[in-house]
């Protein structure tokens, strides 16, 4: 028994290190990708100066952020103020532990994987609140208030859109959900549950505060919302966690609806990564295409459209299963 625990511990620690590296690497790739795609959509080259085709731009950005002065606003509770970015980042790392990247590439295979991800991503709101409250800035406060109402509201349709898949597969285990789907695209849940997928995707955008739902940090209204006052690494951590949550959302979407690591010919992590990045690219595409919605519109979309539709979808699914 003594052998068993340390091995699990070792796996967990190695896994944590690996996920940290994965998060960092993804952030680097995504920063570059986001800027390049934005450039493509804007009909401009995007980053081009640092390294060939600007490939070193994310590193330059990172270096700049590390080199910036760490600044705490006057009268702020500095402990909580600096705790907030960490609270935002830490749960993201945990979530990656349960994601099955490939048939043999999963750090912890647990029966409650999906619940774990849902639980830990919810903690992010708390970070947002603390950041907004301790910044001693009215814009931050408004941003935090928006963030709370937004994520509390959108968590409901998100859960409701995930439920049909759980009913279909009868498990919370992400690995099992992935293997429940076939290798070919028409065997994926996106075919049987298109509405759930759309709702899930919209909610994922809203939960990760991505445009057109980036209201907590709407720069034309609230300057930068909850992270107005953050500089240097504090801002970098928020930035990093935003990308991390984007990746998590894309991962969950890929597993639940697109068959995870299953794919034509040979299953493997390459299919998974490809699907994740397709979803991420769609997110980036949407961000650079649409204007921002208004706050009341955002909540109306949630309460008047997404929740009833999700419930309807759930009921239909249940009816079909029962029959």
């Amino acid at each position, binding site marked *: 028994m003594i052998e068993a625990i340390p091995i699990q511990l070792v796996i967990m620690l190695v896994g944590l290190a690996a996920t940290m590296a994965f998060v960092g690497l993804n952030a680097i790739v995504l920063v570059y990708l986001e800027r390049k795609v934005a450039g493509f959509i804007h009909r401009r080259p995007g980053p081009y100066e640092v390294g060939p085709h600007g490939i070193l731009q994310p590193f330059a950005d990172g270096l700049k952020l590390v080199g910036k002065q760490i600044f705490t606003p006057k009268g702020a509770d500095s402990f909580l103020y600096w705790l907030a970015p960490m609270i935002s980042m830490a749960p993201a790392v945990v979530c990656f532990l349960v994601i099955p990247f490939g048939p043999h590439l999963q750090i912890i295979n647990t029966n409650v994987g999906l619940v774990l991800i849902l639980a830990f991503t919810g903690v992010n709101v708390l970070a947002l609140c603390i950041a907004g409250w301790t910044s001693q800035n009215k*814009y931050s406060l*408004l941003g935090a208030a928006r963030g709370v109402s937004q994520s509390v509201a959108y968590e409901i349709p998100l859960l409701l859109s995930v439920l049909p898949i759980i009913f279909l597969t009868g498990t919370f285990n992400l690995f099992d959900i992935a293997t429940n789907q076939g290798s070919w695209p028409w065997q994926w849940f996106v075919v049987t549950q298109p509405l759930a997928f759309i709702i899930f995707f919209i909610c994922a955008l809203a939960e990760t505060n991505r445009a057109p739902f980036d209201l907590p940090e709407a720069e*034309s*209204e609230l*300057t930068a919302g909850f992270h107005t006052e953050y500089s240097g690494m504090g801002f970098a951590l928020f930035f990093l966690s935003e990308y991390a949550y984007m990746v998590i959302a894309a991962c969950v979407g890929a597993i639940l609806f697109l068959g995870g690591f299953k794919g034509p010919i040979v299953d493997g992590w390459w299919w998974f990564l490809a699907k994740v990045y397709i979803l991420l690219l769609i997110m980036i595409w949407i961000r650079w295409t649409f204007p921002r*919605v208004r*706050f009341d519109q955002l909540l109306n979309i949630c309460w008047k459209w997404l929740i009833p539709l999700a419930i309807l979808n759930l009921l239909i699914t249940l009816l079909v299963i029962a029959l």
Partner: protein
Amino acid sequence: MNLDLRLDTSGDFYAQKFQPTKREDTLILNMGPQHPSTHGVLRIILEIDGEYIVRAQPVLGYIHRMHEKMAEVMSYPQYLPNPARTDYLHALAWGWAHVGAVERLMGLEVPERAEFIRVITCELNRINSHLLWWGAYLLDLGAFTPIMYAFDDREIIMDIMQRVTGSRLTYCYYRFGGVSGDIDDRFVSETREQCARMKERFKMYKALVTENFILRKRVEEIGEISVDTCRRYGATGPVLRGSGQEYDVRRAEPYSVYDRFDFNIPAYNDCDAMGRYLVRMDEMQESIKIIEQALDALPEGDFIHPKAPKRAKPPAGDVYFAVEGARGKIGMHLVSDGGKSAYRLKLRAPGFSNLSLFGEVSQGTLISDAVSILGSLDLVIPEIDR
């Protein structure tokens, strides 16, 4: 951790003079002068209830340069570049208002070719101004991409203008009795090309942006301004035409050769931000129509009156000269005592009057809508502050 911000007395002069309503559950928010959506250095003190605006008060003067005093100490030709610095987006219209006022007082005639050149360049400048407004407005609404497309078109127009005027933004092209340099065939052909290109681009803009669902939800029925509100505040330009009143100085007080062109005055009865948006989009197309007609009918002749005085010295008296700028009626009240500089030059900035109605219109709206309204007024702060 005292966040009772109503009791905060650390604010500056204007924050202390701001009289909030007698409510206890509101917050005072200082928006600007470095806020991203106040376009430069406008500052607005807001009293908000949640995200609803109870009272809004703009604070001006952060980029005030006392252009009116400069007019009194500089000679007339020295003052020529100044009007362009007030409204850097539609610099030529301001320049025109200035030379127009002096010409009217002196009774100076402008050769026909110069009038046509003025019309062409001023309309090109108007398109440029509206394009930047379009991009910046959508930026306010959270769409980043359109401004890049707008700059694509702007660059071409600025290149065309640079060759004849010598500058890209704050043009000083008009002189008393004409313009500073003649246009050539290359200018004409490039302008024609750009007009043809713009027509295609407008179709794309319509499909990509104007018909976007989220955009429509953000601008329709937002910031409704009635004609009477416009009248009480003296709002003109697209703000007024977006309320359905067809009032355009080019038609109402025809100056130069505008009465020879066939163009419409777009007006929309919706009175909302969408109306103002559509007016500007249509106006660019009308400008292209004017430019094409002017290019077709471009007469030969002098580009400046041969007897135009080097040092203008208008006789004593006063005139008022108004032109239609991209933001509305630009007026100059020039009083001369017969000296070599103006006795008094009063600049009427359209943005000044347009902004003054913001306090009334923004009452009871959300902050997001206020940003949308502010953007739809098309503010250029240097013009307002002068």
